[in-house]
């Protein structure tokens, strides 16, 4: 389909918006179940006698698990489109089936992992299972809907030569990778170890000693989402949204030409310089890692012997 410039920009804006929503919700979804980076501490806690009421959603890493739901949604959508369903309906049903399958994987990982920690007396809380799993399914539905919608736009309107499941899978992997690298930074250390000094790093003695109590009552995974929705989720959303926008913007304006390539390279260069400036600023503001007094003492003792 050939579009004029205004329409192309509208499509691009729509894709950017969908990607922003997908990125944001993906990060929150991974936090509902303590997936990815924070998962290791949740897994470790019962071993250190820190039993907890946090969901242990170990459906592998975020790129793989989101790829799973996106490709499932893509396949179901393709089948429905082939059966002459209205596109929006096809995408919604595809995303719904994918999200439910994703939820099934989530229940098995929580139940399986807790059952494998029997010797530490970690109980399997069925209320956690009942009200956290629907939240996971709901979040994943939104993510999957946005990703399959982007894949549909690329395939049908922009005329990409790849199939919808293929594009959806690539977007699923991308959203997982960005959620893992951008979003986790604002959750892993901070929320589980919020009773320690900010940015103190995690030494071995603290392993598994996660915060298990909330402002009122015991902390569950849903409390973590509330925390992450303030910064981690939106940051991830902007990350993926900008990725989609900047990777498509040059070709939308200039078409598939060398000018577009050059603009792409310039965008990359500007971003690299900006990243470096931020890094230098952070290093100047916070300096190198400061050793604890105890650590210094241990090093001094080691040197004297």
């Amino acid at each position, binding site marked *: 389909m050939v579009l004029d410039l205004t329409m192309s920009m509208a499509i691009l804006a729509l894709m950017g918006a969908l990607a922003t929503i997908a990125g944001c919700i993906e990060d929150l979804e991974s936090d509902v179940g303590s997936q990815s980076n924070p998962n290791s501490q949740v*897994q470790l806690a019962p071993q250190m006698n820190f039993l907890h009421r946090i969901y242990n959603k170990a*459906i592998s890493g975020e790129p793989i698990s989101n790829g799973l739901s996106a490709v499932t949604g893509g*396949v179901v959508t393709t089948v429905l489109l082939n059966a002459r369903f209205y596109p929006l309906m096809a995408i919604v049903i595809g995303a719904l089936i994918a999200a439910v399958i994703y939820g099934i994987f989530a229940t098995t990982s929580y139940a399986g992992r807790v*059952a494998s920690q*029997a010797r530490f007396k970690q109980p399997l809380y069925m209320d956690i299972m009942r009200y956290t799993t629907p939240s996971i399914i709901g979040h994943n539905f939104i993510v999957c809907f946005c990703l399959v919608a982007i894949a549909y736009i690329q395939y049908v309107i922009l005329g990409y030569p790849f199939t919808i499941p293929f594009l959806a899978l690539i977007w699923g992997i991308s959203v997982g990778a960005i959620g893992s690298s951008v979003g986790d930074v604002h959750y892993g250390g901070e929320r589980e170890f919020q009773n320690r000094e900010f940015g103190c790093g995690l030494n071995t003695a603290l392993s598994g000693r996660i915060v298990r109590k909330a402002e009122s009552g015991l902390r569950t995974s849903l409390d973590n989402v509330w925390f992450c929705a303030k910064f981690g989720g939106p940051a991830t959303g902007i990350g993926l949204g900008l990725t989609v926008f900047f990777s498509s913007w040059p070709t939308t304006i200039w078409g598939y030409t060398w000018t577009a390539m050059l603009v792409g390279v310039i965008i990359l260069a500007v971003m690299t310089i900006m990243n470096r400036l931020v890094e230098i600023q952070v290093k100047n503001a916070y300096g190198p890692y400061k050793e604890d007094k105890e650590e210094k003492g241990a090093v001094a003792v080691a040197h004297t012997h």
Partner: protein
Amino acid sequence: MSDIKEISPTNLMLFGIIGGLIGIYISPYFPTAGALGAICAVIWGAEAVRRVAKYGLGTGVPSIGQIALGMGVIAAMFGLAIVKPLPIAGPIVALITASVIGFVIGWFAQHVIKMKIPVMIRCMTEIAAAGALIIIGYSAAVGGNYDFVRNLIPRVFDTGVMLAVFWVGAMAMLHPFNACLGPDEKQKRLLYLAGSTGAITMVIMGVAALMTLGVSGVITLALGIILWVIFYKKFWDEVYSDAASVVGTGLIPKTEA
């Protein structure tokens, strides 16, 4: 725990290979059998992943699953495509190719990277072979046959269903151990979960087969759902008996910490 009787790896390997090949060879007459064969291979593969990943490969479990299907898809395409005059030999050539690739990668991991995992070579060979059977089995359930040029390319590759076979098949194989990771992991629970994840993949293949094959897709879908319910229920029975306690709600039990 060693006092619990486990099914031996060799028996599961035979179950996977024989079940997988029978399913694949029946698939031209009854496409659903391809998916049933693939479930046998998933159960075998999950056990192989379990044995190799027990050596402390925490985050490595998903990688093992992905590499398995990566090796499997290359071997499956090579095996099915190379025997054009004699398509019936395809699955066996693919199985042998996958075993060779797995053996070479396992040998490299063991002797070049020096990972020092005693079962590495055997398990890599096994998971690659299981990966190839998973790819061919599920593809045959969607394509209606394992004929590469006439069935698989137009029905499985051109429609993009191959990506689902690859990705969901890998999840089916790696998820059971990943989800049961922990010191009290038990083989029985893991195998039931492998059946459950294999059946979920079968359901997705059934949906895809609705598009490519029509009626036999309905059979795959319905049978997949029934199998999933059975295996999922069995898995939960094991969870109820294995877990320290299953409670409706409650406070955290008192411990020394």
